[in-house]
């Protein structure tokens, strides 16, 4: 890997985790597209030809990605992935082993505690429906007092806006009334269910599925921090991954997490369970240690070959929805300097709030700057859209 790419992975590490996958896909797609349109909430469209009103809507359909997840994934299937109770019922009926768990409404902590005692500590607590891009769970809960405290704490309302980067743009909108306790503190609505599941002992096995085929299998032994590539995992686990993918028809890309006793031995009823499914492949976690695997996955997701990210290029960028021209100029110059990019900035059109500029430098830096601006990462003058040609 050359020096530029090292800088790219270094920069990736500094961005919020939930924006990294999107940047990886953007870095792949932007150099391969005639026009990229970056919209709020990590929504990105890539056109093969520059769209115009005259060209006709049908002929200029772009490819869409949101938070680095391909638009090939259909909506209700992804919503199923976000709803643990729904996918558990579906997998159980298809004969796939899932972790022992039960869900209860927010009205009664006693039910949670009773169930945790029944299955035995330690347990994991998680919301049944995931409305954020990251997986929310609390593990290693060892006793009743800890469970009661953490249950209450996790239900306390975080001030989350729909425009927050962590909020899932494709989740169901939750409009039910917040629960307010006797001290005036706000909590999630009582109807929001939480799940208590048995914390499993064993190795983590991660299977990444693309178009129904296993494209990567990684393991992480208990206590380890890095994922390890495992070419010789038993074929039966890959069969489990394919079976899950078959159940979730409509998800072209899927991540399946399991806990297994030993990935080298055949899967049986009592040595493995599925603990999570997600539309987020989390390639950014693999790029440093397993570059080739990451490249193979990303090429399938982005539907293009990995470009030469260190290649010098020039792009024309248009930012919309800008109010303060002076602040934009200052911040943009600073960011371009940090990324060693050449910048030619036009004056802000105050009526339309649009500003044009030309950027030159390595491809990865061009992708990074546009992604940083589209998602308001560490800047104050945040545009409403970024269009690159």
């Amino acid at each position: 890997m050359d020096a530029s790419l090292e800088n790219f992975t270094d920069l990736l590490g500094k961005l919020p985790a939930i924006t990294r996958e999107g940047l990886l896909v953007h870095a792949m797609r932007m150099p391969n597209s005639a026009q990229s349109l970056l919209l709020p909430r990590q929504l990105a469209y890539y056109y093969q030809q520059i769209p115009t009103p005259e060209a006709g809507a049908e002929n200029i359909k772009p490819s869409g990605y949101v938070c680095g997840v391909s638009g090939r994934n259909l909506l209700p299937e992804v919503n199923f992935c976000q709803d643990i109770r729904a996918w558990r019922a579906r997998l159980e009926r298809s004969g796939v082993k899932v972790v022992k768990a039960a869900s209860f409404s927010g009205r009664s902590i006693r039910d949670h505690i009773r169930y945790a005692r029944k299955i035995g500590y330690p347990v994991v607590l998680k919301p049944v429906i995931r409305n954020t891009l990251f997986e929310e769970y609390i593990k290693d809960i060892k006793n009743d007092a800890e469970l009661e405290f953490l249950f209450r704490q996790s239900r306390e309302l975080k001030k989350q806006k729909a425009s927050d980067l962590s909020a899932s743009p494709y989740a169901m909108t939750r409009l039910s009334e917040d629960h307010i306790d006797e001290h005036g503190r706000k909590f999630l609505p009582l109807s929001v269910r939480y799940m208590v599941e048995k914390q499993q002992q064993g190795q983590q096995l991660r299977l990444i599925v693309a178009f129904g085929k296993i494209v990567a299998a990684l393991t992480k032994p208990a206590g380890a921090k890095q994922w390890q590539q495992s070419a010789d995992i038993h074929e039966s686990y890959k069969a489990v991954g394919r079976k899950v993918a078959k159940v979730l028809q409509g998800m072209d890309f899927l991540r399946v997490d399991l806990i297994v006793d030993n990935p080298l031995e055949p899967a049986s009823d009592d040595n493995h369970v599925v603990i999570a499914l997600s539309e987020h492949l989390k390639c950014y976690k693999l790029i440093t240690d397993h570059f080739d695997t990451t490249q193979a996955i990303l090429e399938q997701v982005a539907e293009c070959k990995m470009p030469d990210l260190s290649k010098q290029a020039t792009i024309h960028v248009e930012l919309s929805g800008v109010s303060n021209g002076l602040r934009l100029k200052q911040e943009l110059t600073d960011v371009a300097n940090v990324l060693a990019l050449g910048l030619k900035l036009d004056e802000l059109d105050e009526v339309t709030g649009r500003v044009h500029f030309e950027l030159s430098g390595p491809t990865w830096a061009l992708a990074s700057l546009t992604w940083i601006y589209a998602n308001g990462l560490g800047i104050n003058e945040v545009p409403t859209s970024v269009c690159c040609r």
Partner: protein
Amino acid sequence: MSQDPFYVTRIELIAYDKPYSEPVARNIWASGATQANFYLKVAVTCAGEERVAAIEGGLGQRSGKPMAARYWDYLETVASRLMGSELAPEKFLSGSMPAAARKWVEATDSLIDNAGPLDKRQWSKIQSAVTSTYKLLGKVFKALAQQEAAETAASDTALVEALFSRAQNVLYLPEAEPPTYTYQPTIKGKPQTPSEPLSPNSSNDTVLMLPLGTMDAKSHLMERECVRQGYNILRTGKGVFTADNNGQRFYFKLSRSPLVSIDAISLCTHKEATREFLAPLGFPVPRGRMFPAGDYENATKFANLIGYPVVVKPATGVRGIGVVPNITSDTELKSAFHVLESSKLGHDDFIVEKHIFGEDYRIMVIGGTVRAATLRAPANVTGDGKHNIAELILIKNRYRQNIPHLKSRPIVFSEATRYQLDKQGLTLHSVPTAGKQVILSGSCNLSQGGDSVNILHEMHPSIIKVAEDAVKAVPGLDYCGIDFLIEDHRKPVGETDIGICELNAHAAIGTACYTMFGEPVNVPRDAIEEVLIKNKLPLTPLPEDNIAVQVNIRGKVTGVGYRKWFARHAQRSGLTGYVKNIGPRQVEAVLQGSLVGITALTTACIRGPSEALPTSVRTTHLDVTHYDEFTLIP
């Protein structure tokens, strides 16, 4: 004193959304009842003299429960027996009950509901309903005999307003002409030629969809069409189900179907993203911009740059929350920011955009083709020269109850209604002249009492083309409700102002399916057929009048009255088959009958009676066999 007989000429019977302990019928209040959940007004006439009395009472206080529904049916029957009755003058004026009163309050079959002679608890409830209704009528007749008390009840404005804020269900009203809708747009203050008046629709599905109760019909409609195409269903939540057939599986969540991708929904749920996407492609979107929460200074500058009137709305809003239209000055804009800030979405980014004049339309585009165009008119009534506005609202609400999608969305009396009436110099007691339309709300939302009118037959092809092209431009969007503002939908683009407000990738599917006026369009059917066509699967519709399914319900469904609940709904919907327990946490049933009746019940099974906690409901097709009745197998 006149010796002519008195006749019961008018009755209003209104159910409240919940029990209230504060009486609104100030002069008569059923003593003994601590809480009231219905209001009864009786008018009697004799030789041009009218006397009115009103009373409140409490029956079946657990709103939405099966027993409550039986009480309402019973009261409605009592009201219909009472209507038109002749009352002997001596007895009437002495305040005693007419001889026929015992017959009026006789228990109905629906109140008895197959209660066996040994079911003492049930019989005592029935007896108590009959006795309290008799006593209640006794008080009404006593009040009617005292002319002064009766007059107070009739002219109390505060009473009428309080009543409207509580009204959930108008059960019984005197005969009146059905409400009509006449489309007559105004362009630059000039009224255009009116269209033919439309009569209200009435759907037979309303009764069959009763098991759904307060559940949203979206998910049921999708399930209905999947079952019609021979698919088996696994439902795991109120809005969540999968449909499968021969290894092919589709997922659904409310009206989120496999016709939409995740990037499409992300684009559609963000109004600024939608504008930034559509504007460069030349589609008519209003000029506007998004601002971060609290950036009111820049937003005000921008409003002045594009010129008033403008609209303020949250960037990711739903159901009209925080939207303030037609802002004409800096002062109004400041108030609008306050409204936005105090709404549930007030802490989020917001949009300021140019206001477009015109009516609100929802155009459904499925598979790139427009299938339905629904005009959403704000809540309104049309005068008949006889009834006052309060009565016209009640009459219209009565007709709304014949439409499943509008049944739970009546016109309600609120601050907004009072504001609209004040603006027109009217009150609830005003009697509008025949044909005069009175607007009751500033919002076109159906849940605010708005009308849905299907006007696809009148819509100009150029507008249809714009809608189809806009949806086609978004990748992964094969199901979309596109919201337009249009001055006159009968004119071509260019001659009339049009603007795209938003794209809805999970638009309410019942809007066009159950319209108040105009020909309804079966949008869920079109959507499911499109899913099959897109996946190159054959269309194999089953007959709608006779299908058979096996239903397996798992979860906490035994020992909670589940089978009884199931059997009651099945019998009411005219279905045959059986229901039985097959384990400690599983109930099995076989249903045979109409598609609508069966799927409404299977959708409602995920909720069941109040004590039940079902976790999944599996519906599997069976060959049609012959059951003569529905049996509850012990």
